[in-house]
């Protein structure tokens, strides 16, 4: 490495006098670069910690049991997020009920039934592109189709249907990956004893793919309950003084409540927003932890 090139090659001889490896300098540049890369990673992590700490400090004075069980109020000291929590839970259940069958169905079709052809390719490309459509555009779609055309109004169902379409590409892609990971020997063995295509899928492919599908589903739901823009578009309210009891009821969700309180000038409402953020983040953390546990269990089982 320290030599200035070999002499058994014409080119090297020509460069012989000019080539100086300057290894110390190059290594130093390398070290500086590595430090810069590490600083980039540190920047993201510092931002994450700062954000969480900022929210936690702002929220500390406002988090209480009353906050979780009260209705919103114009008086900050009495305000709570009961309707927002219930709305978020309703949305979660409805979105799951709508997007799970549609998403898994589409994934089964694409992986197990679809002929390799233009239509299949079109559907696949379409799903990839839908995943990149801004969430507010789904809001516009939901407003025009579910709220107005189907006449669902500003109901939980309209919101859930909009969010279900929003997360559908993610559900489909995750389910497809899980189904694709099922070894084909399993299918062939089932076909070999005379099972029909659906029997193979129902009894052999789906049970094996289910943990992967559920992981994707939970992650999609955590995205759905964090979305604000589409829910604003379809007209969720910020002040809901009742608890929703049916899918046709008006509603609010945590992100809307957070947005509304953040946009107000008074510092008290900012504290309430921070407290609601803590509740939302804890909910998301629990969902993600479930997804990770499922994934780990699935991986260790496959390893056996």
């Amino acid at each position, binding site marked *: 490495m320290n030599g200035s090139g070999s002499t058994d090659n014409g080119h090297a001889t020509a460069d012989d006098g000019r080539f100086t*490896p300057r*290894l110390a300098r*190059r*290594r130093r540049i390398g070290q500086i*670069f*590595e430090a*810069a*890369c*590490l600083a*980039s*990673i540190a*920047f*993201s992590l510092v931002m*994450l910690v*700062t*954000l969480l700490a*900022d929210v936690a400090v*702002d929220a500390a004075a406002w988090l209480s049991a009353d906050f979780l069980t009260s209705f919103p109020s114009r008086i900050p000291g009495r305000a709570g997020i009961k309707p927002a929590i219930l709305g978020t839970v309703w949305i979660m259940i409805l979105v799951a009920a709508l997007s799970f*069958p*549609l998403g*898994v*169905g589409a994934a*089964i*079709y*694409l992986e197990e039934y679809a002929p390799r052809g233009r239509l299949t390719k*079109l*559907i696949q*490309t*379409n799903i990839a*592109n839908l995943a*990149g*459509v*801004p*969430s*507010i*555009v789904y809001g*516009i*779609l939901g*407003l*025009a*189709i579910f709220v*107005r055309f189907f006449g669902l109004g500003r109901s939980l169902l309209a919101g859930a249907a909009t969010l279900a379409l929003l997360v*559908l590409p993610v559900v489909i892609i995750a389910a497809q990956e899980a189904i694709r990971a099922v070894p084909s020997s399993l299918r062939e063995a089932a076909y070999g004893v005379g099972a*029909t*295509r*659906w029997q193979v899928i129902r009894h052999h492919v789906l049970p094996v793919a289910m943990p992967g599908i559920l992981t994707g589903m939970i992650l999609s739901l955590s*995205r759905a309950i*964090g979305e604000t*823009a589409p829910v*604003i578009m379809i*007209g969720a309210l910020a002040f809901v003084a009742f608890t929703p009891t049916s899918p046709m009821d008006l509603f609010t969700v945590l*992100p809307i409540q*957070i*947005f509304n309180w*953040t*946009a107000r000038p008074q510092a008290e409402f900012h504290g309430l927003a*921070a407290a609601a*953020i803590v509740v*939302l983040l804890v909910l*998301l953390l629990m969902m993600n932890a479930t997804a990770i546990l499922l994934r780990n269990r699935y991986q260790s089982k496959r390893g056996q």
Partner: protein
Amino acid sequence: MSELTESSPELRWRAGRRVGERVIAGLLFLCGLVSVLTTVGIVVVLLTESAGFFREVPLVDFLTGTQWSPLYTDQQFGILPLLNGTLLIAVGAMLIALPVGLTSAIYLSEYASPRVRGVVKPLLEILAGIPTVVYGYFALLFITPLLRAVFPSAGVYNAASGAIVVGIMIIPMVASLSEDALSAVPRALREAAYGLGATKFEVSTRVAVPAALSGIVASFILAISRAVGETMAVTLAAGATPRMTLSFLESVQTMTAYIVQVSLGETPHGSLEYKTIFAVGLVLFLITLVMNVISNRITTRFREVYE
């Protein structure tokens, strides 16, 4: 299975099974079709609703006008100020997300030990999973006061604050997609360079990055598209002032923030002001669609090279 002994129920059973299979296949196909219908729905809604708008406002005025004030008595429908705001935020966000995201990706793919990667990647996923409204809170109530302390001329609502949080928000996306691209570069390429006496820095920046360039570019384009479509953080932090400006310290309005402003207000359904959200939505949809298609194309080609 006792029917198997008699021929006719056995046949009926088989026929039933076959019909059932067809019904199921049909239902599954319909599920697959929902995604296509969603796209059709988006395009039809945006086109039909904005058709009504363009009957009253000429397309040329819409695309070249430098004033946007549909909610005032002096109505002006030039989208350029909204595009200006959107691009200003997107450019600012990319100034943060591209260098930080790419160097993070290089660190994770080329330098980090598996243990460090195992810790850092989930943390980046958490950063990516934080709802955008939370970033809006952070921008308005943490970044903005900080900015105003440094630049006293900055407004309560300013483009810089929105751009910074959108940048932070898309770092994980750039980092993770670029890292995927870097990891897909065959080891043999790196080893050949090491064999020629290259240092780790040279291998990373002159072999791995150029070899993964298409994937990295695809991740950049996807990130820009995401920044253009980002809504809540910019609505909260950047304000609601459509303006032709290149200053990061002034309040601007993005296309997304305008759509939110209208839907929060009391604009009557069917009015011209109301129809503006579909026209603006159409422009937003087309911009992001074009970028996503380009990004997907690049990724597909890139895959073909190494598989």
